[in-house]
């Protein structure tokens, strides 16, 4: 007994000292500050249920890193990206970020897409005082974790609002039904914000149903929704389930369009939903159809490299890496305190997904686009067609727009004629 206790005590002390050591190593300035390569940790879902998200984002991040390195790195220092797969599971996300900040001693972390995963992993980055930029987690709570957590996308109160406005004003919908993913912070958040805005605009929520990721049958929920006879059905889920929901809604003879968010944006959505997706709408971060030269250059480069059109997640991954590089330049190095400050002060950075300014809550304030899903029966392929752009309150649309899309603000676009920076000047 005594021996066991002694052994336990020894093990505990060992662990404790190990933990302390790691804490010291991870916090404050990194040993390699000032010179040597810049190590960036990327974590995302590469093999799980939302693998398309993680893979697209990784492609965007790596493409940006390569571009930076080809141009001579950040202040002469090359960028190295360490990629970790969290399989789309929150606990694994926390584990891999622990590994990135403590073991790999990365200077900054990029990731995740799904808000639940970002929420699980963010405390690890915050604890170690390593800045983390989420490219595309839209749940507001993500950046509330701490002052080292940022994002380069808009947040769900805005995204939910955009769809509510679009439904009420553009589609003249009075009655909406909601089918949401009960276990995803992202989906629950959007449901809440959509409901609030839609009711505020005089609409009515006539049915509300939920499911969980991995469910195989949605006909029960959809039948109840059908009985409520809604004008539109808001499905703020992820593509894996949404493709099937769309499919099964058609098999029940539901004609009301489905509305969704950026969680739908994946090539796999079309494989699962096919023709049934035609006529639905989503809110998203950018449109590949945007004629602005900066976006078209990004789309062409991405297509040349990966042989597929970049979805919004790829574009946001690309932007997150570029924003980080920009902040490192302004911070004059990778000292974590200075780097954090520099990211927080990002103002009017001309990204592919629009002008990025970080507000006091460490979120980016940007417009959203609404895309219409169109199925081409002859080509057996679908695409997201640009429909409209909706701006956050207090942000005025640029004076001249060629296709109504958000033009990127100024500096980076060579032919800046069509893209005055006026809109972004009024950012919070």
């Amino acid at each position, binding site marked *: 007994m005594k021996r066991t206790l002694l052994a336990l005590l020894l093990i505990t002390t060992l662990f404790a000292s190990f933990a302390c050591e790691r804490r010291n190593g991870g916090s404050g300035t990194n040993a390699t500050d000032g010179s040597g390569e810049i190590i960036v940790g990327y974590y995302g879902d590469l093999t*799980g249920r939302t693998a398309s998200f993680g893979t697209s984002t990784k492609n965007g991040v790596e493409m940006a890193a390569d571009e930076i390195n080809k141009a001579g790195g950040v202040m002469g220092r090359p960028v190295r990206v360490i990629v970790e797969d969290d399989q789309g599971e929150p606990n694994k996300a926390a584990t891999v970020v622990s590994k990135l900040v403590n073991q790999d001693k990365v200077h900054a972390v990029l990731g995740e897409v799904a808000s639940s995963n970002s929420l699980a992993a963010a405390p690890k980055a915050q604890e170690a005082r390593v800045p983390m930029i989420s490219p595309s987690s839209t749940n507001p709570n993500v950046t509330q974790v701490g002052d080292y957590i940022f994002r380069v996308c808009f947040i769900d109160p805005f995204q939910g609002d955009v769809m509510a406005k679009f439904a009420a004003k553009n589609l003249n919908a009075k009655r909406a039904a909601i089918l949401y993913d009960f276990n995803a912070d992202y989906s629950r958040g959007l449901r809440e914000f959509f409901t609030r805005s839609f009711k505020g605009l005089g609409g009515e929520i006539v049915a509300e149903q939920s499911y969980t990721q991995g469910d195989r049958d949605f006909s029960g929920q959809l039948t109840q929704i059908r009985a409520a006879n809604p004008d539109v059905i808001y499905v703020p889920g992820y593509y894996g389930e949404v493709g099937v929901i769309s499919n099964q809604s058609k098999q029940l003879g539901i004609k009301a369009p489905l509305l969704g968010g950026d969680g739908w944006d994946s090539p796999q959505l079309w494989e699962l939903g096919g023709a049934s997706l035609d006529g639905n709408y989503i809110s998203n971060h950018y449109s590949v159809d945007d004629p602005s030269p900066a976006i078209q250059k990004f789309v062409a480069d991405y297509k040349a490299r990966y042989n597929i059109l970049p979805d919004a997640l790829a574009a946001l991954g690309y932007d997150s890496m570029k924003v980080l590089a920009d902040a490192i330049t302004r911070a004059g190095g990778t000292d974590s305190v200075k780097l954090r400050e520099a990211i927080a002060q990002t103002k009017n950075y001309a990204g592919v997904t629009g002008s990025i300014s970080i507000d006091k809550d460490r979120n980016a304030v940007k417009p959203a686009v609404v895309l219409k899903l169109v199925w081409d029966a002859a080509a057996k392929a679908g695409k997201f067609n640009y429909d409209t752009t909706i701006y956050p309150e207090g942000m005025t649309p640029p004076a001249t727009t060629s296709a109504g899309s958000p033009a990127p603000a100024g500096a980076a676009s060579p032919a800046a004629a069509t893209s005055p920076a006026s809109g972004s000047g009024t950012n919070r």
Partner: protein
Amino acid sequence: MDTFVQQLINGLNVGAIYALIALGYTMVYGILRLINFAHGDVYMVGAFAGFYIALYVGFAAGPSWMALAVVLVGAMIIAALVGMVIERFAYRPVRKYSRMTTLIMAIGVSLLIENLFVAQIGATPRAFPDFLGSQSQAPYRLFGNAAISKAQIVIFLVSIALMLLLQWVVFKTKVGTAMRAVSFNLNSAKLMGINTDAIISLTFAIGSALAAAGGVLTAQYNPNIDPLMGILTGLKAFVAAVLGGIGNIPGAVLGGLLIGAAETFVVGYGQHIGIASTYRDAVAFAILILVLLLRPSGLLGSTVQEKV
């Protein structure tokens, strides 16, 4: 009313798949007194077998009865082989030990299959090709709003046909007689000159083929397939087998249909009595607990004569 009928159709549709899988559980239990926990994974293997056959033969999505038939039969054959291999190399060597050993082996095989698939192809969902054209086709209207889709009709018809076929094999053929003899008493059957190993192997083959049919059929209604899809579905089918009376073939079908209907009605009407649709999965297991407490032999009893 039309909503009620619609929910019933939805529920029986889900239930038919559970029933197909539950048959495998119940047949194996009838013969070996073994809960084959790897059975849910055989269902998954069946769905993937269908997926890869379609991929390699080059069947693109699009309405084609031919493609569906080839994929269905091919997947059933592959799954039958997988079932026989599992039996031969995992269960037969430990059959002489206690039943607990076999049970633990079954859990091990289940985890092995799942993780092999995850390691080999990742947990990413795949899209099963739509051979019925149901993505773009409106359902057949019955009355009011109640409608039935092509996929649902196919699921009903194929599963009923397979169940009748199984009933015929078990009761009208020599092999079926041997299976029933083995389930009565394995040693006596052996003494009567029945090749019990072959019969057990065949039982696994039939059960696995039925599960694979369930996998391919369900993929026509929900094209999203992934390596972990068999876990929950398999467990619910197991509950269905227990509910009907494990070891009892009609019981498995009844149990499957009841579980499917119960789930769907919880989604549809649970809200009125304060049960959210997210409680759907809990319902099957609540039923399991109730059955074990109140009627451990199941609705139709697990010791009736026609068990297999």
